[in-house]
Each structure stands twice: as structure tokens, then as C-alpha cells.
């Protein structure tokens, strides 16, 4: 009786280990496909192969947002603090879109090297605090670019 239990335990452990190994290999092989977006640095190494439309993610560069003559078209640059890519977008931006904030844009890279976005999503960071605390941190000079450390990793 003891022996059968023991055998079943070994079988389950071996099975799970093999499964974990296989899953790790598959996930590693599909690494690029599981990534939701490319960073500007990825783009600098060469635009993604056989994908006309793709997602580009990073921070909205400080001071780069320009409204085109009051129209619905916006120009800004997406940066990962190493490289940056110019982006144009026509449409309504999400509430959290602002300079220094993370965004993920989907669209195509045109011949002039400008990313023409069809959709812009705001990426939220993992910091939660009341507005007064945020104000106090800024006033005390303790404010860290919350997004910057995340994308820089």
C-alpha cells in the first residue's frame, strides 16, 4: 500500500516537472509574440519583421505633445529614455494620457519614420496614493518619476 502511494507521488511530481519544463520552453520560444508592445529601443534595432501594424509602448516625452492647429490630431514622442519615436494620432485620448505617463500605441511606421497610431491606450503604473500625498511629495522634492523607473528596467 505504502509503495503504491509512493509511486503515485513520484508520478505526479515527475509529470508536473516535465510539464513546467515544456511550458517554460514554449513561452521562451514565443517570447516576442507574448510581448504586447515594442519599445523605441527595439525599433531602433530594426522594425518588427512581417508585421505592418504593431504596438509601440513607452513614456510620452515631456514637452513633446503638440495639438495640430486645434484639430483632433496630436503629435508627441514616445520614449524609453534611450530612444524616442515621433507619433501622430487623430482621435480621443484616454483620461490618463499626459506627459511623462506610459502609453501603448497601435499603428504603422511610415517611410518618414513617424509612427501613425490608430489607437492610443494609457498604461497605468502600480503607484496608488491620495492627491494630497502626491502634492506633498512634489512639494518636498521627494517625487520620483514613477513611470521612469519601471520602463528603465
Amino acid at each position: 500500500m505504502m509503495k503504491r502511494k509512493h509511486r503515485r507521488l513520484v508520478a505526479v511530481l515527475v509529470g508536473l516537472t516535465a510539464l513546467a519544463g515544456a511550458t517554460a520552453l514554449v513561452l521562451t520560444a514565443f517570447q516576442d509574440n507574448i510581448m504586447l508592445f515594442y519599445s523605441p529601443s527595439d525599433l531602433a534595432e530594426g522594425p518588427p519583421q512581417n508585421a505592418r501594424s504593431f504596438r509601440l509602448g513607452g513614456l510620452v516625452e515631456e514637452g513633446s505633445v503638440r495639438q495640430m492647429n486645434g484639430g483632433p490630431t496630436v503629435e508627441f514622442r514616445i520614449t524609453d529614455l534611450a530612444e524616442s519615436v515621433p507619433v501622430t494620432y487623430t482621435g480621443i485620448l484616454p483620461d490618463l494620457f499626459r506627459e511623462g505617463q506610459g502609453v501603448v500605441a497601435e499603428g504603422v511606421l511610415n517611410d518618414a519614420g513617424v509612427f501613425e497610431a490608430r489607437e492610443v491606450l494609457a498604461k497605468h503604473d502600480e503607484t496608488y496614493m491620495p492627491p494630497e500625498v502626491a502634492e506633498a511629495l512634489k512639494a518636498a522634492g521627494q517625487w520620483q518619476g514613477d513611470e521612469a523607473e519601471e520602463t528603465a528596467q
Partner: protein
Amino acid sequence: MPLHRFANPGRFMRLADRLLPWTGGLAVLAIGIGLVLGLFVAPPDYQQGESVRIMYVHVPAAWMALFVYTCIAVASAVSLIWRHPLADLAAKASSPVGAAFTFLALVTGSLWGKPMWGTWWVWDARLTSVLVLFFLYLGHMALMTAFEDPARGRKAAAVLALVGFVNVPIIKFSVDWWNTLHQPSSVLRLDGPSIHPDMLWPLLAMAVGFKLYYVLLLLIRIKSELIEARLRALGRAAMTSAPAPAPVAQ
């Protein structure tokens, strides 16, 4: 019907009866405190404003989705290896609860995503792996009852639960391994929570409340399964001892 099936379950029934009122009372208390703190007392977020309050349901529900699945996987391993009679019942009782929590996490996440991200849904690693978890729960529930012989159904479901367990670390670490739209973890971090204490407390109260609620449902559901098994056994005993009943005209 081997006698040991009733030896442990009998003790379980007595324990469950003693625990039930406490678990129920504490669950209501913790969820009540969590909801009042989260919806009325906690401050709005500096960027999300009032929408942050969705988090007090979304995050504990998502934790439960992973927690309940882990419980099912452990119960399934115990059932496959040691053939403990209560382990199967615990796994069977858990999957609808886990599926409900996963669904709640998906729906509240979607409601939060629209105003914050600008989309209801995106196929990033976190969202997709949680959707897979939801389907695993549904598959587990379906397999349990898919066979004529309940023992075979329980065994197949246990194997599925163990195989599907690879998804749990994938969900947990998806936001660290790949770039996703979903933000990384705010509470379980090496450098401490990146969430203000005024927002952390309602979150933790809700998490404790959801866990107690799960325990409550687990006790009730296992109890009713045991009663049902006893009824079936009694029916079989009556059928074999009594002379065959005459066919009843409908």
C-alpha cells in the same frame, strides 16, 4: 461502501457545524468593513480619481481566482496520491466559487480598463492568462460530471487541475516577464507596497472577507455533498434489504 469514507467525514461534519457561524459572521464583518472603507472612507487616487474604488473589488477577486485554483490543485494532488475522500469533495466544491471570482475580476477589470486605459480588453499576457484560468475552471466543472462513473470524473478533473496549475505562476509573473498593459503588482513587492496605507487597509479587509466567504461556501458545499452521499448510501441499503418495489404507475 468502505467504512473509512464516513470516519473522517463524520468528524468533518461536526467541525463544519462549529465553524460555520463564525466564518459567516467574520466574512460579513470583513467585507462590510472593507466596502465602507473602500467606497466611502478611502481617498480618491491622484491620477485615477474615484475610479480607483473598483480596485477594492477587482484585486481581492483576482487574488481569490489564484488562491482558489491553488487550493484545487493541492486537493487534486492529495486526492490522486493519497486518495483522501474529502479532497475530491473540496476540489469539486471549489471550482464554481473560483470561476465566479475569476469572472468578477475579469468584469471589474474591464470596467476599470475602459476609462483608464481607453479599452475594455487587450490581449496582453496578464489578461489572456486570467481568461485561460476562467476556462480551466469551467473545464474542471464540466469534467467532474462528464462521466457516468463519478470516480472517473473526479480523477479526470484532478488531472486537469494539476496540468492547469502551470498557469498560476504565469499569471502571477506575467507582468514581470513580459511587457503588458496591466500594471505590475502594488502590494507583494520586494521593496514594500507602492500603495498608500489608507488604500491598502480596505484592500486587505476585502481580501480577508473574500477568503472567509470562500471557506464558508466550501464548508456548506462539502457538507451538502456528504449528506447527499449518505442519502444515496441509505437508498441503496434500503433497496437491497427490502423486496423489490412493485412498478409504480405514473
